[in-house]
């Protein structure tokens, strides 16, 4: 369903010059699977997911979603994904219903079907009491609910969640994770980024540890534990990052020395 192949993305930076936010990232995700992108802040998770959602254009490699290339067919891709992140806020001066309805219309859903579908989603997410509440008046949890409703209103086969639980309290986060799990059960293909181990262990079928734009390890939780013979996910994560940083630092240090001789 999601096919990512040698994806690269670099930015201009005043201080550091050209910076690679993503370097040679490849993975595949199947329907009915939750794929977790695990990495520290600034690892490139958001960049990767933004490319998948066509908001950013890759500088190299390619990414296909349901067979459509994000670079050449961004509209078709957007039609087939639901995207939610800490940066996809909701409008302050729109009610929950209007907000979901608006995006439903942008997805081109028939008016009658749209109303039914929103009604069903509002039922599922228990949102009827905030139906006519303006975005500015909502609590963070409710806002998150509206965001989820917005991202699934067009029943997309692919869902992309970029750190959806950040800033939520434990109760709301738990509800949200449950909602994501139930989406998987509906057969959606889900990619999910986080820096919280617990969520990964609980939710993800497969994970990729990403750091400084590179995938350091990929596989199911068990596979990784076996491969690196480290039963604790958290330890494993730290080990991988530590090892990468050490290697990288040595090469960085040796490079100028060789250049000098």
């Amino acid at each position, binding site marked *: 369903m999601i096919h990512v192949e040698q994806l690269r993305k670099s930015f*201009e930076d*005043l*201080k550091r*010059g*050209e910076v690679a936010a993503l370097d040679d990232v490849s993975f595949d995700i199947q329907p009915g699977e939750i794929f977790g992108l695990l990495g520290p802040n600034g690892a490139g998770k958001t960049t990767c997911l*933004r490319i998948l*959602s*066509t*908001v*950013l*254009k890759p500088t190299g490699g390619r990414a296909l979603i349901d067979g459509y290339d994000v670079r050449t067919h*961004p*509209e078709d891709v*957007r*039609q087939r*994904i639901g*995207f939610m*992140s800490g*940066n*996809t*806020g*909701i*409008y*302050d*001066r*729109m009610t929950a219903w209007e907000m979901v309805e*608006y*995006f439903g*219309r*942008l*997805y*081109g859903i028939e008016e009658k079907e749209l109303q039914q579908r929103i009604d069903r989603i509002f039922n599922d997410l228990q949102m009827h009491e905030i139906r006519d509440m303006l975005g500015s008046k909502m609590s963070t949890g409710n806002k998150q609910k509206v*965001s989820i409703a*917005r991202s699934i209103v067009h029943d997309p086969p692919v869902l992309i969640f970029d750190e959806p639980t950040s800033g939520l309290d434990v109760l709301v986060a738990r509800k949200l994770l449950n909602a994501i799990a139930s989406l998987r059960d509906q057969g959606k293909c889900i990619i999910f980024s986080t820096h919280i181990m617990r969520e990964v262990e609980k939710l993800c079928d497969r994970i990729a540890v990403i750091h400084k734009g590179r995938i350091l390890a990929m596989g199911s939780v068990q596979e990784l534990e076996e491969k690196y013979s480290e039963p604790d996910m958290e330890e494993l994560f730290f080990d991988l990052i530590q090892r990468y940083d050490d290697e990288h630092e040595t090469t960085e240090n040796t490079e100028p020395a060789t250049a000098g001789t």
Partner: protein
Amino acid sequence: MSFRNTRLIFNREVRDQLRDRRTLFMMLILPLLLYPAMGIGMVQMRLLFNEQQRTVVILGEDQLPDTPQLLQKDGIAPAWFNSRSDAQKLRVFREKDAIVADGEPPDEEIQNYLVQARLMQNKLLLRAAQRAQLDQLDERTAVIVGVEHLPDAWSFVGENGEFKSPFETNDETKKLRLLTAPESPAAAKTADPTQPQAEVPALRIAELISERRLALTASGDAAADRVKEIDDEIGQLLANGQTHAVAIIPVGFADNLRDLKKRFAENADAGDLDPGQVPRITMVYNKLSSKSVGAFGMLQHIAASLERVLIPSNLPLKPNAHVEVEVAPNEAALAEVERELEHARTIRRDMRLLDSELGDLLNESGIEVLVVIPEGLGEHVEEVNRMISEPDRNRAAFIEYEGPIILHNAANEKSLIPHQSVKNALDNWEKAILSRRLAKAELPASLPNPINATSVNVAKEEEIAASLWSKVFPALLIIMAVTGAFYPAVDVAAGEKERGTMETLLICPATRTEIVLGKFFTVMLFSVSTAVLNLSSMGFTGKYMVSIMTDAAPNMPGFGALTFPGGAQLAWIGVLLIPMAALFSALSLALATFARSSKEGQYYLTPLLMITMGITVFCLAPSVELDPGTQASWFYSVMPVVGVALLLKGILLNPAAGPEFYVFAIPVLITSICYSLLALWWAIEQFAREDVLFRESERFDLRLWVRHMLRDKEPTPSFAEAGFCFVMIMFLQFGAMKFMSQALHGVGPEHITMRLMQVLMVQQLVTIACPALFMGLLLTSSFRRTFRAYLPDWKMLGLAVLLPLALHVLVSTMVENIAPYFPGLPPEFSQVAASMQDRNLPIWLPLLAFAVTPGLCEELAFRGPILSGFNRSGRMWIAIMLSSIAFGAIHMVPLQVFYATLLGLVLGLFAVKSGSLVPCMVFHILFNSLQVLRSRVDPQVITDSDFLRFLVDVNRDGSFSYQWPTLILAALGALTGLLWLANYGKQQPSMSPGIPTEPTLTTAKPPVIG
């Protein structure tokens, strides 16, 4: 792209804006409440000003003449005011008011006012005394000797021997004390010996002058010595005595003048006039004494006005001559002058002090206006009245007397307004006195107004209204269209980023273009409605206010009913508002998209607002208008915003304008639509840029940025660097102007052309080549790629040699034909053009200055880093267009800008297609060389050859035009060449189409080379 999405986004944005209190406030509350509130405020202010009474104190009431009566029981009689209600706005206090019946306590307020007023009166008296002293110091004395010899008609001598000139006097001549002295010594002796005598030295001077005349006719050293002695004595008398200048009327002056006039009337031949017979008044002064020179100047002025009156203008004589002597004043006199100057300075200083004291006193006293009636005013007025009614009146005995003083402070409105009404009352009162005098003297009442011009105002009410609307409406429309676009644009673009909903919108299926269009239409809707609401609110409020004011003062000259513009004009406002609002909306949207937050958005949009304000003020200038007769109008009509504003101004001012005016609507509308589309395109571009949408808040560090520029060099410059290069060239050119004109200053005409060419070459190198090289070397890593330093295809080179020949014919013909539509050359540029044609110069010099140097330098810059940088946008044609517009812009003169831009397109195409700068340079040098050569061809060569005459036509002024055969050949050649160029690289050309054009063009060329 579907309009469904655009409509959805538009609907949401509009609803969103309408739910925003700020937008509603800007849109509705402000225009609907602001103007009525302003109107009410104005009415209130008027009332406030009108209702408050102002304090006026009148001193010296008992000095007023009895009739007509200026004062009534409680102040100035209302009859004297322009408007009777003015009388009620003044509280008038007089000395009489302070007198109260016995037993009653005196009114302290009035007492206080009067004390203050008397204080000020004393100061005023002091001031008047000082003024008189000053006048006396400035006074010069001149004596007219031999007044008895003047014609009878020239009897300007008063009873007391003072001179009365009824002719032109000015402030200067008033300072002249003119005395008269009869020439008989006996009369002189009778003068009062106690008075310092001005007449005595004058008579002595007269004697000396006649002796001098005799001495001058005699010959010999003794006579010359005598003249010197005489001059010395005269100089002493003039410099050190009471007399500063003397006019001597010779014996028999009147008779001579009469004879002369008679003779001239009989026989109007001036040729046989004996110079000796011409009567002359001799004026004597000392050139080294400033007082004497001053007195002489005044005398001359009076003499000149006498001459104009008494001597027929056809009489070829000037009856005054002057003798000047040069004798330095003695020390005593110099000291006296110095002392007088010092004295005058002191008095002036004292007067300034007094004035400021008076000002303080007036401000502190609470009196707004003080009127001081001088002593004896009434008596003087009565006396003159009496004199008038006497049957044989002596006009010369009329006396001058002091008038009342109205003390006020013009910097204070509280004082200025009552001053105005007191002044009006006194003026009206004065007129009444005058008309009484006229009646007494049995003279017509119209005597003071011998001409009495009446001005008739033919402006119709609609015209007055139209002139007002034509000023207010376009300005308001523009300002409100910008303001209306400003806030929604910031909210829908930067605000969306700020609230974190931008990404939500970006991942919806709508394309970026659809999103921008949806937002754009929203902004435009608000821009249009703000403008319309403001305009109508202001219109209705203005009309209502005027009607109120007209009711209050029916005869107020004003705007009449302030008729609204007609339906057709309102429709025009609508038609023109749309593209203008679109332009502002797209610009604001693009700028706001760039901003990260609403606050930043407002910073970015403020310059837009300022520029628009500037343009608006420019358009309000009365001389800036669309006039079918002037060429500048066509420029105005294609300028953004200006065209719309001026078209609207014209339509509102004169709705009945003919079709020749409405023709301007075509360029105005076409260009406005183009500008808005360009701006919209820019907004969409902005919205598609990742670095704009996901800009991070970062500290701007100049050092870091420069280091980044120098470190992370790329092979070719970036788009922004190319733009910067162009701006740098423009700035350098601007700065070089001063040095250029300095270099040309003071160069003789024989060297000017040479110097001009040197300056031009230096300018090219410094302002164009240097910045380009600097940019290329410093900021790019590949000099070769930036400057396209590659060897071109030989076919390209061939075309670069041939194409100029064809294009030169076409371009020069086009320039000839369109030149009248462009403004003329400024003088400096015509000088350059003239130097190009200077046949005295060796041919290589203009070629070097006008062809080779610009060819190399300009190509280096405009087809070098500028084009390479613009080409980074990935759109070849846009890069070429931008570089040619930049290339055109540095040519400054509109006509040159126009065709240089066109040629820039060809040059840009050469550069991009060949990947080399060489063909561009070859083309440019050849094209310019042809221009130079063409101006140096001898017309004789062409007129001598039948064949050449077939191709080229010699105009009357020696310039050439190409004949039709040449034009057709050139057009065909140019077309083939350009097509081949445009398709170069797309497919392998089977043969070079450049070659067939060669024979035709070489035949056209010989005349050019001559």
